[in-house]
């Protein structure tokens, strides 16, 4: 992959990039953003950079319009007008203030092209925009669409600020039993959506008043906490297979706080029930699970992992606690799959490990896929045993990536084993309930940002995914965000969601008699086996 050297405020950073997007788009995914106030079509002239080295492509009309002769002679360019294909070095002369909002690591929230923009437009604004929000436990993503054409205009991705109240949904739900904290949690989520809207509209030069529909998907806990309603019900087992109402009751005040159109429709897509949220429905819409080959398995790896099995006739769904290992990597050396994350580990001939970093040259830690790779490598070379013990009886594996040093503890591996076991047992429970052997699966959709970078062979070697031909396994990325976009613009998507809702049967894993055995089996770091 070509390299991009970025000089910003006197510091040099080295990124790699896939040719295709503009320089501004490449920078927008990293921590080094340029200022901007248009969609990147050369209208604002703010995205100025100085090219220091690399192939010079011809000056574009927008550059001739915005840049003086002296600037042009000095190597100044507009980042949105350059589409680099080879190594490049640039200086950010107009860097944007650091912000928690970025373009997602790859264009993940694109509604499936088969789902047309055919929903009736909300009244009150001519030529309205809509915002699709996927409110995840760890991250929030927001994409702005042109509701008339169905085009995606821009998207943002950032942290869910509720994390300071707890990393997992249950800790947050428990915190919310205090009314003050429930208010604070709701405010944090709403405010984050507002910030994302502000960042995307300001930087892309979009009028927020034209946003006239906001469609939100999320797991049940996130939706109830956002709506500040019924989150207490999720703490009662009786509701773990029941419907939970979390419709927004005060959309107008949310719209006012977000600075969008006063007539905006605010839709919180209702969850399926229990801990299975509308993010799963969105994912199933994106992957058209019930319209494809069967039997098919859908796994959304996350802090709250959701699993669906389509037998061709029945749709079984469940939720299971995955812990943060997938989304944020292993405890002490973990990081989300964002710029700076080690997302790929391979063995070079001779046994040295090679680490690849996402959109940066400084490693912040291992994200979920990097963790899976590293554990699989250590197993292969015999440094780790299938029980998760280090072969030498030690408690850690120390490694360095560039100048950064990291430690992978036995406890971090244990966290991965537990997360893997929870999902493995969930898969086995669904398959056993439906009478579908693992080997009969014709399709496995792996959703979640974690899945985006997953090495299928390594995932199978440690038993994270069933042993099936690689062609049956789809790494689908953030299907919830893509599904939110589809639900925002498409009537067909809404209809499919209704069909899914009417077919889905919620399975309570507590009622699966062999859960313990399945859980124990899947704690092992070894390929998944049929019981």
């Amino acid at each position, binding site marked *: 992959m070509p390299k991009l050297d970025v000089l910003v405020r006197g510091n040099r950073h080295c990124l790699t990039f896939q040719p295709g997007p503009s320089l501004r788009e490449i920078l927008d995914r990293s921590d080094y953003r340029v200022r901007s106030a248009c969609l990147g079509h050369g209208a604002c002239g703010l995205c100025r950079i100085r090219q220091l080295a690399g192939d010079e492509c011809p000056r574009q009309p927008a550059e001739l319009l915005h840049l003086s002769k002296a600037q042009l002679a000095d190597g100044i360019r507009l980042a949105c007008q350059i589409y680099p294909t080879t190594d490049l070095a640039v200086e950010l002369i107009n860097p944007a203030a650091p912000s928690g909002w970025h373009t997602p690591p790859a264009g993940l929230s694109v509604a499936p092209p088969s789902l047309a923009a055919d929903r009736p437009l909300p009244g009150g604004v001519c030529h309205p925009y809509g915002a699709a929000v996927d409110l995840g436990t760890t991250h929030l993503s927001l994409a702005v669409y042109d509701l008339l054409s169905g085009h995606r205009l821009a998207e943002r991705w950032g942290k869910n600020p509720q994390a300071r109240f707890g990393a*997992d949904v*249950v*800790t947050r739900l*428990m915190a919310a039993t205090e009314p003050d904290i429930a208010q604070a949690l709701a405010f944090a989520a709403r405010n984050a959506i507002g910030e994302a809207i502000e960042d995307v509209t300001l930087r892309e030069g979009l009028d927020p008043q034209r946003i006239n529909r906001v469609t939100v998907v999320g797991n049940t806990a996130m939706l109830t906490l956002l709506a500040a309603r019924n989150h207490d019900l999720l*703490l*009662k*087992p009786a509701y*773990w297979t029941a419907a939970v109402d979390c419709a927004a009751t005060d959309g107008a005040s949310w719209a006012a706080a977000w600075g969008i159109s006063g007539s905006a429709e605010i839709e919180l897509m209702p969850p399926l029930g229990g*801990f299975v949220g509308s993010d799963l429905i969105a994912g199933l819409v994106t992957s058209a699970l019930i319209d494809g080959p069967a039997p098919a398995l859908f796994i959304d790896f996350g802090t709250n992992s959701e699993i669906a099995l389509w037998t061709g006739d029945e749709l079984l769904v469940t939720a299971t*606690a995955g812990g943060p290992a997938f989304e944020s990597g292993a405890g002490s050396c973990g990081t989300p799959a964002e710029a700076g994350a080690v997302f790929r580990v391979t063995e070079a001939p001779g046994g040295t490990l090679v680490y690849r970093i996402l959109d940066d040259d400084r490693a912040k830690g291992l994200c979920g896929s990097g963790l899976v790779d590293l554990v699989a490598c250590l197993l292969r070379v015999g440094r780790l045993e299938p*029980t*998760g*013990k280090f072969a030498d009886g030690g*408690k850690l594996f120390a490694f360095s990536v560039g100048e950064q040093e990291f430690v992978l503890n*036995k*406890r971090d*591996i*244990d966290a991965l*084993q*537990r997360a893997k076991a929870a999902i493995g047992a969930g898969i086995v429970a669904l398959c056993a309930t439906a009478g579908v052997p693992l080997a009969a699966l014709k399709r496995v959709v792996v959703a979640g940002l974690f899945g985006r970078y997953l090495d299928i062979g390594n995932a199978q070697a440690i038993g994270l995914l069933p042993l099936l031909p690689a062609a049956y396994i789809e790494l689908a990325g953030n299907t919830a965000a893509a599904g939110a976009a589809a639900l925002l613009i498409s009537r067909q998507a809404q209809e499919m969601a209704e069909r899914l809702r009417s077919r889905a049967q919620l399975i309570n*894993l*507590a*009622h*699966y008699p062999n*859960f*313990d055995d399945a*859980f*124990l089996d899947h*704690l*092992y770091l070894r390929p998944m086996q049929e019981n």
Partner: protein
Amino acid sequence: MDAASTVRDDFRPLIEALLAGDHAAALAETRRLSQIGLSAETIVTAGLEIAMQQLDDKCTVESFNLLEIMLVGRAVSAVVRELYPEGVPPDKSRGTLIVATLEGDVHDLGKNIVKMVLIGKGYRVIDLGRDCPVDTVVAAAEREAASGVLISGLISTIVPQVRRVRAALRAHGLDAVWVVAGGAALKQLVATDLDVDCVAENAFDGARYIEQRFGETKP
């Protein structure tokens, strides 16, 4: 106490098999020891208890992961079932305790380990299984005149149920019943958070607390 110094040579293979979580080997050793005439009680005190003592020492330094502990728990269960197919006779009991995994939690190996430790120490243990409603726990505590209730929780969704236990016991006039909570999801919380008497670091810690309380009541 240096546990290793009290290990009887003829029990070494059993203890090793238990700690390796090899339940087939542990069962074979148990049968061999029974055949050469050793009583179930001896096998428990010289085998299981020592193995658990050693596991306890290792657990405190966090060198065992969940899988290893579960495997040991499984091996211990298998051995106890072999020794007492009908359950531990109540006349040998030093007191009655209730163990349960509460409604919503699907994991009961943690609870099974506590149960084994307590049986190993000679208590009468009523196992209510997993996915057990709080009301069932209270009813059992009343019926069996239990001295304590031990709750294990591996997943954090269980915390709200744990918090209800004490109040539910009180509502039935069972104020004196000790409540001990333990397990991955619970051990990072403090006792007042959960409204319990003790949050156990692990099964052994929980059993120690119970012993200590029995010690206070029956000097």
